[in-house]
């Protein structure tokens, strides 16, 4: 794996949590998702890929996630992604309509309650330990325009 991204995995019951920190692009996305597909144990029913700390994601990575989703579905394993509101990769996720194929949540499930995962409200509070890297509200009055929210691409 390149220096671009770091992968941490944690299993809670039948849920496999995979956290990707860094950047995913043509150089590492396919390799990374293939490795994930092989690494997920059969006993796992849910695979959650947490992209909260992922700062870049290109179309090659999107394609890789589609492949991973297909592969897991064949093994009756659900794939879900976590992309917080305000994430730098949010635009790519939405533009590629990835969420129509792979459910995308704004926060990771509580480790203690993996089965309640699907019931999470869509606008759930993001993981407080991992604030969105882009703090566009940090200095709302910095330029006096008050357009911080206006940057959001709907």
């Amino acid at each position, binding site marked *: 794996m*390149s*220096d*671009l991204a770091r992968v941490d995995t944690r299993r809670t019951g039948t849920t496999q949590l995979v956290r990707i920190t860094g*950047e995913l*692009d*043509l*150089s590492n996305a396919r390799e990374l998702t293939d490795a994930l597909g092989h690494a997920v144990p059969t006993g796992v029913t849910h695979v959650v890929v947490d992209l909260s700390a992922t700062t*870049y*994601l*290109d*179309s*090659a990575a*999107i*394609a890789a996630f589609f492949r991973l989703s297909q592969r897991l579905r064949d093994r009756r394993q659900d794939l879900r992604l976590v992309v917080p509101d305000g994430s*730098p*990769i949010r*635009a*790519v996720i939405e*533009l*590629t309509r990835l969420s129509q194929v792979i459910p995308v949540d704004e926060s990771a499930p509580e480790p203690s309650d993996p089965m309640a995962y699907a019931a999470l409200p869509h606008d759930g509070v993001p993981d407080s330990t991992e604030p969105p890297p*882009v703090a*566009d*509200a*940090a*200095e*709302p009055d*910095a*330029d006096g*325009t008050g*357009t*911080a929210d*206006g*940057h*959001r*691409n709907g």
Partner: protein
Amino acid sequence: MTTGVGAVGTSGPAPLPAAGPFDPPARDEAVISPARRIARLAAIAVAYYLGARLGLRLSLVGNDVTPLWPPTGVAVAALIVFGRSYWPAVAVAALAVNLPISANPLAAVVTAVGNTLAPVVAVTLLRRVGFRRELDRQRDAIAIVFLGALASMLVSATIGAVTLVASGSITTAELPAAWAVWWTGDAMGVLAVAPFLLCLPLFWEQRRWPLRRWVEAVTIIVVATLVVASVATTGPHIIFLTLPVLGWAAWRLQLRGAAPAALIASLVATWAAAEQVGPFEGRTLLEQMVTLQAFNACVALTSFFLSALVSERMQTAAALSAAASELERRVEQRTAQLSAANTRLVQEIQERSEAQEQLSHEEARAQREHQIAETLQRSLLPDRLPDVPGVALAARYVPATADVQVGGDWYDVVQLPDGLIGLAIGDVAGHGLTAAATMVQVRMALRAYALQDPSPPAVMRGVHQLVAQLPVPEMVTLIYLVYDPATRRLRWTNAGHPPALTFTDGHGAYLEGALSPPVGVTVDGSFTEASQVLAPGATLLLYTDGLVERRGVSLTAGLDRLDREASAAPVDDIEALCDRLLDTFLDEDHIEDDVAILVMRPAISVDGELDVRLPAEARNLVQVRSALRRWLKESAVSDHDVNEVLVACGEACANVVQHAYSGQTSSGELVVEARLDDDRLEVRVRDHGHWRPAADRGGGWGLQLMDALMDDVDVEHTTGGTDVRLRRRVQMGGEG
């Protein structure tokens, strides 16, 4: 009074405490009163006279042959005990004895002279051999037998016998017999009587006898008397049975028992001879004499030798016992000494441990001082680098772990007029507060000079003058550079410092030239200047020798390594670059010399344009993105738009990487250019390969994303390659 003290024997064993040396008479004479002396003289004379009367009573033939002549024993004992100066008593008594029995007064006088002279000679000889009147050594027994009795009495016997002839009492033919009788009589008188008299003072001089011992003594004397009396009067040849009794006396009581027993035995035997009873009955005079004298000699020798032997044994035992107790005492003493030494040692160990503890305190203090020094050093360096538009700056200072002193490494960044940036890094030789103080002065002077005139040689001359004027001139190495962001031109001068490094995209080069000796070393202090345009995207690294110098590694090798490591490091974050260099080059646990590094990277765009050229490989996409991200941020594009532009550009670049040079053995060039006019952004992504239709590309999301994220996407295909233009109006104010 004139007896030689030197006559006291010194060759024998050391006298034991119980037995005094045979010299007390000399001391006694000095202190006793004349009356007492006269009393003693009288006593001696009376004793002598009485002894003579006793001797005459024991004569074998009339008054002529006395086998035992006690007066000589009295005389010898008296002169031994009281000193030779008491001879007049002997002389007078001898004269008194001899006058009635001599032929004429003259003969009596001469005989008396002989009788006086013999004891004096005897005592003189005994003194000469170190005789002790305690008779507790064998040599004392030998001395009194052979010198005191046999030898000395030759004098009296010769004088007496010759006088008898001269006075006509006997014929010349009778001389030998008379002489022999006289001699044996005198000798036996000494042997029988003198030891008895000598033993008398011992009763109060030596340890007193307990009652038990007195009983034993009386028993022995009684038994001896009975035995001697019975054998001397009855059995013809069993007189020798006396000897075991004498042996018993000597064994049990030594001289104090043996001498009286011997005297009694001799007296009884002599009396028996005089009375011609027992073994002496019916014998000739000669036979009587021989038997008697042999018996007396045996008695004397047995008694004195045995008692002397036992005394010696007892003394030896006492000496051994004393030695043993002395040894024990010494062992105890030594044990006490060892114990004391041990106590001292324990105390010493404790003191040392306390000293050790103190030392640890000292160490702790030294450590605190080190921390203070380090804090001081850090406080002397710029606490934060200035925010300079158009350049990114990062710096590190790492103190030496091996040195408790403050180091002399320093760096500084000065914002100069006309947008110029002054950078300096230096090393003041030595450590400690002096070096730190010099460092501060040099740094402040450099700031002042640079603000006055940024020209590197001018600044360096000023610093040189300052250093040369220091009371304690120090060697200072220093690089001073001026960077002009408008022209990307670097001007520098280097006073003996390791050269600065510039590097970009895997290629590094040291800034050679304008090198002069360290400041403060030369007299004239002339400095030159060199200049170079910093390549776009290039990074400038200043450092001190602690970073690259290692024992056993040449400086050239260190510089080569620095070049490699710096060039290979990711370029988008110079803070990370600093950390990476320190991690790579320094052993955290052992930093021999302090290290300072200063990194400057100008904004990639100087005039608003970005120009990145890289091999079209997937692994380079991140570099393109980081360069573009930096450029966009430095151009104050909002973070949100930066992210979207990065995705669009990234897709265009990924297309180039994936498709432009497919089928070719080596990848071609990927060119990314960007310009910003007000809020109008244009990014061009170009290659020199072949364009392939979108249908060939997986998903076609790339183009979709570009279209969605940019206002306008224009793809132009030529035979020379493809040119993708991405345009968009961007939000400014990226700080949010």
